[in-house]
């Protein structure tokens, strides 16, 4: 596009009081060769906007608007087909750095700041292009659902009801999962008081007769290759070995020699091939694979299996009549409740909900509110089978029936054969055929003993992903979801606000694979995951990103001629969007990409960029910052580059502006998509042009990371540590480059963070590179 520039400075909201707008217009645009410059008292007003509209009508297609933050008036200053660069003169200059220069001051710091920002905006506008959406060569809307339990069947039915074709793949020989094996199930609806007949049969029938749903039983996913909108999926029988089984990365212990040193790339490559002998490389597509647009992962859970000797005080593994809740359910589904040891009726049953004796009140591993509810449900079975003299005892530390499921607990309390008490079960002993359960600190007394025919442990639900990747992704980063160890192998989201977000675009977990859920919860979760799958295929088809940069049409572009095959982009991408080939050249999968720019930040050759955000656009902004030297002033002011995450730190700075908080004027702020996209070249350039320091402001990292792109701030901090070493070799103090964490609501602290850093740089003194 042939750019025709328009350059506008707003005088409103106090900008004029702090900045000499006339001087700004005279100094900067001319320097940059621009002539179409205008000012107005308020460009957001009807009259002001009219000026912009007129210019656009007359052919202006690149607008640089020096006014408020781009986070406000976003709709007013939107001109389709035009590049609009907003220069934040209000929140970042006028509201945080006033008042204007007083008479007698040698330097007008605020004016210099405004000039820099305007120059930076103008240069950036010249460097960026309007994005064009990425179009897949092949595209399908079909949804793959992994797992044929209640969650999987519901996901398929809901997606089908919205018009999308689905395939359910189920490992077992039939649909239904655990739901088909229960005697009764927990209530699905209000008033949540009584047990219901299992509904798995109904769902199976609905799935089987729905023309939009295909069912593959006795089948598992061998590999999922490709990207959202165009996944190629290979299926196989369970336990079968096929060439399209996904290759696994070398385990860490096989990557190093005896001394612990990592092998050379060639040796590693050979070891990898040996390790995966008989398996096709991830970049070889299965010609017989089926095409899918997105995936719902509903592979569910398995019962927790206590290890040998685990819960010995409860007699598990020692006494035949001590069973888990899953074993009990199986017995109950078959017929009347009896003792496994001799088949005689089990009329007195004790349910133990917490294994920690009187030392710890935690529930069993992988337990949840489902285990509490199931204990109540199973206690009712005993009463159903032996209404006259059956007795159930539940010892719990905390009865966890949250929300409206409290009604089920209350209904259970009405049953006089059901005894419920807080209590720490200390031992289970056996005399003859009778078990004796001892509990302490109960509501019935400091220590009680209950004779039981059967003891049931309320053990938890282990997600299927604890044992197996299930999704078997043909991704260079490996076949499994990454970092789910944080969630005890549940495929959960770390984001409270965005529960469907994972590190694998287009694959959405639902049901008990992400968190132990009741059937009711699993079913709504299934509908949610189905929606996300549909949304992902529709976004892929439109060529736009999904969350969190929803609608973004840019995608990373690679200049492969200069790629040195270092593989950093492939390894660092938080979403596994890149697969390198055998030489190490990355193969992008744009619809897996979330557009964070981490690849751009990682690339030492600087060959990755986006249409409107790239090494050159930001690098040129850095270079547009004027660094005053002793040629200009006796005591030249410092210049410090501040790269801020636009998701959290930038809004925090805006809020500081709204609160009219002042901070040091020697900094220059550049927003970035994510700290992960920060390429160290920008910092090196800044320092080598004489800037005195650089600071990165971004999100918290660690286990409770707040980075919307998962790893951005963490990767940036690793890179900044490395740059410290490089600085040392330049005889620059490593303290000149720092990264600070700022949460979005810490706008009250942001000025202090900035001022403290400026003070540290002042203490170090000006950069020795100034003026070179």
């Amino acid at each position, binding site marked *: 596009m042939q750019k025709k520039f328009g350059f506008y400075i707003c005088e409103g909201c106090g900008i004029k009081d702090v900045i000499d707008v006339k001087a700004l217009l005279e100094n900067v645009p001319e320097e940059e060769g621009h002539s179409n410059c205008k000012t107005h008292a308020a460009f957001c007003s009807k009259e002001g906007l009219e000026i912009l509209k007129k210019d656009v009508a007359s052919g202006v297609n690149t607008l640089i608007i020096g006014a408020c933050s781009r986070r406000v008036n976003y709709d007013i200053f939107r001109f389709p087909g035009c590049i609009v660069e907003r220069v934040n003169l209000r929140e970042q200059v006028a509201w945080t750095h006033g008042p204007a220069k007083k008479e007698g001051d040698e330097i007008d710091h605020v004016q210099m700041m405004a000039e820099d920002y305007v120059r930076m905006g103008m240069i950036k506008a010249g460097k960026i292009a309007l994005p064009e959406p990425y179009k897949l060569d092949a*595209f399908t809307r079909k949804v793959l659902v992994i797992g044929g339990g209640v969650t999987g069947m519901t996901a398929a039915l809901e997606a089908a009801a*919205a*018009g999308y074709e689905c395939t359910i793949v189920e490992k077992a020989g039939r649909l239904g999962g655990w739901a088909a094996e229960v005697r009764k199930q927990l209530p699905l609806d209000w008033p949540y008081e009584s047990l219901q007949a299992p509904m798995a049969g109904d769902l199976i029938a609905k799935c089987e007769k729905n023309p939009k749903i295909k069912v593959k039983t006795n089948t598992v996913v061998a590999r999922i290759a490709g990207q959202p909108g165009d996944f190629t999926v290979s299926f196989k029988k369970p336990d079968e070995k096929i060439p399209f089984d996904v290759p696994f990365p070398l385990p860490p212990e096989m990557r190093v020699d005896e001394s612990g040193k990592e092998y050379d790339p060639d040796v590693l490559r050979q070891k990898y091939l040996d390790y995966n002998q008989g398996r096709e490389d991830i970049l070889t597509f299965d010609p017989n694979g089926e095409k899918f647009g997105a995936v719902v992962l509903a592979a569910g859970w398995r019962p927790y299996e206590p290890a040998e000797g685990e819960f010995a005080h409860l007699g598990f593994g020692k006494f035949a009549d001590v069973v888990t809740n899953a074993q009990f359910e199986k017995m109950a589904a078959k017929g009347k409740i009896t003792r496994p040891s001799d088949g005689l009726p089990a009329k007195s049953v004790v349910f133990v909900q917490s294994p920690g004796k009187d030392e710890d009140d935690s529930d069993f591993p992988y337990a949840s509110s489902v285990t509490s509810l199931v204990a109540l449900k199973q206690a009712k079975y005993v009463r159903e089978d032996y209404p006259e003299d059956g007795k159930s005892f539940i010892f719990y530390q905390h009865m966890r029936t949250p929300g409206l499921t409290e009604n089920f607990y209350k209904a259970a309390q009405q049953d006089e054969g059901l005894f419920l008490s807080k209590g720490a079960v200390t031992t289970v002993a056996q005399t003859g055929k009778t078990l004796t359960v001892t509990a302490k600190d109960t509501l019935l007394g400091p220590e009680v003993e209950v004779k039981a025919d059967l003891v049931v442990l309320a053990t938890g639900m282990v997600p299927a992903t604890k044992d197996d990747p299930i999704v078997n992704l043909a991704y260079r980063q490996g076949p499994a979801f990454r970092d789910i160890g944080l969630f005890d192998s549940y495929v959960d989201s770390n984001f409270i606000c965005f529960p469907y977000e994972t590190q694998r675009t287009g694959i959405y977990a639902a049901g008990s694979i992400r968190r132990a859920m009741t059937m009711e919860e699993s079913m709504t979760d299934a509908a949610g995951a189905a929606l996300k799958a549909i949304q992902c295929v529709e976004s892929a088809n439109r060529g736009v990103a999904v969350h969190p940069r929803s609608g973004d049409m840019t995608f990373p572009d690679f200049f492969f001629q200069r790629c040195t095959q270092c593989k950093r982009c492939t390894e660092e991408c938080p979403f596994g969007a890149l697969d390198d080939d055998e030489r190490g050249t990355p193969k992008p999968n744009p619809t897996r990409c979330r557009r964070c720019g981490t690849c751009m930040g990682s690339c030492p050759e600087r060959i990755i960029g986006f249409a409107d955000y790239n090494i050159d656009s930001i690098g040129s902004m850095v270079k547009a910052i004027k660094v005053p030297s002793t040629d200009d002033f006796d005591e030249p002011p410092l210049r410090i580059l501040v790269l801020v995450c636009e998701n959290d730190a930038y809004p925090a700075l805006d809020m500081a502006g709204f609160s009219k908080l002042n901070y040091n004027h020697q900094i220059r702020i550049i927003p970035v998509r994510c700290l992960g996209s920060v390429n160290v070249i920008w910092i090196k350039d800044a320092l080598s042009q004489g800037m005195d320091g650089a600071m990165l402001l971004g999100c918290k990292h660690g286990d409770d990371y707040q980075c919307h792109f998962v790893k951005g701030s963490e990767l940036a901090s690793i890179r900044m540590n490395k740059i410290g070493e490089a600085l040392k070799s330049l005889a620059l103090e490593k303290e000149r480059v720092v990264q600070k964490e700022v949460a979005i609501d810490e706008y009250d602290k942001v000025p202090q963070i900035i001022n403290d850093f400026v003070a540290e740089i002042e203490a170090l003194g000006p950069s020795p590179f100034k003026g070179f």
Partner: protein
Amino acid sequence: MTQEQGAARASGSIMVVGGGISGLTAALEAAEVGHEVFIVEKLPYLGGRVSQLNNYFPKLCPPTCGLEINFRRIKDNPNIKVFTMAEVTKVTGTPGNYETTVKISPRYVNDNCTACGDCAKASQTEIPNEFNFGMDKTKAAYLPYPMAFPLRYVISPQVIGTEDAKRIKEACKYNAVELDMEPKTIKLPVASIIWATGWQPYDATKIDNLGFGRHKNIITNMMMERLASPSGPTKGNIVRPSDQKAPESIAFVQCAGSRDENHLPYCSYICCMASLKHVAYIRELYPKAKCHIFYIDLRAPGNRYEKFYKKFKDDPNTVFIKGKVAEVLEDTATGDITVVAENAVTGEKISQKVNMVVLATGMEPSAAETKLPADLKFTDDGFILNDYAKGGMFAAGCAAKPADVVSSNQHATGMALHAIQTLVNR
């Protein structure tokens, strides 16, 4: 070969009533599939209850972080139209074809507002700040909270017709103040409606034995959120209301109104985790302050919540007592409160004197108080019952049941799909 298969044909718009986290989620998830969505919010800003929270449990991260992303998604999506200070007054029609009437109350500030704040500076009237539960005051021309979206001031109807209104109008350089703004009624035809009307904190003054409203140093859990927030009345300093002193001891009364046949018979889902989170707030400011938590059951289910609970179990200054609080007594000289409870395990009567009490009040569905103008079914307590067979209208999040933010968002995403199904089956 491309396996091109036509997307389901769908037509019509979706209305989302309520702009809290569930409403935002439902609206955005549907809009990002490609459908037109109207958000109708009765307050002047979006974000709902979560915007009043300091942090979420168990991550202890600020809700504004996710709201910022959601607001950006709205800004970037022309499929979404937002109506604030708007209430649905009438719904007629059938699934797929509803005619809705929406009343928009005057904000007295128009689109010209640049949020420069001159109006607030000029105003001389102070009104109770409802966002902070009346713990401080705000000017009659105000921004509801620093990150409010839309970022536009509001003028309290209280000053209309007064000298202060004139001052406010004169202070605005951008012609944004319209004192003669009238309520407006608009009609929107929509195909399906998501009711994400959310919840309100249960009125603690109704729980007579817990002394709220009588004793200054008894606050609710939602007030605690505002006290802990950097944008709250104390700028994040948790101090007791009577004398602004840092508390050395705090009691948390769980199930304040919840699990109680006289008040809310159900469990409000979030209060146990919320109180644990409050202990975390206190720990950060006052490492040695004593926290006493009186509970019936500590509902921290699942690995993630159980881990969060574990963090506090070993804290010698946090004491967990299984026992329902029977009464509270104020020491009028010091403002201290004695909490009286019976330990359910030992039977021992406990009288614990503390500087400050936090009532873990529960959530009441908004529909319990204000009847919704549509053909919906409700539980006895005012939660909306979803009728999927009928379709057309769906309750999302806490309008349907008490839930935490994660579950509300999952639920709302699912309801967005149900709403889309109605569009497809038109």
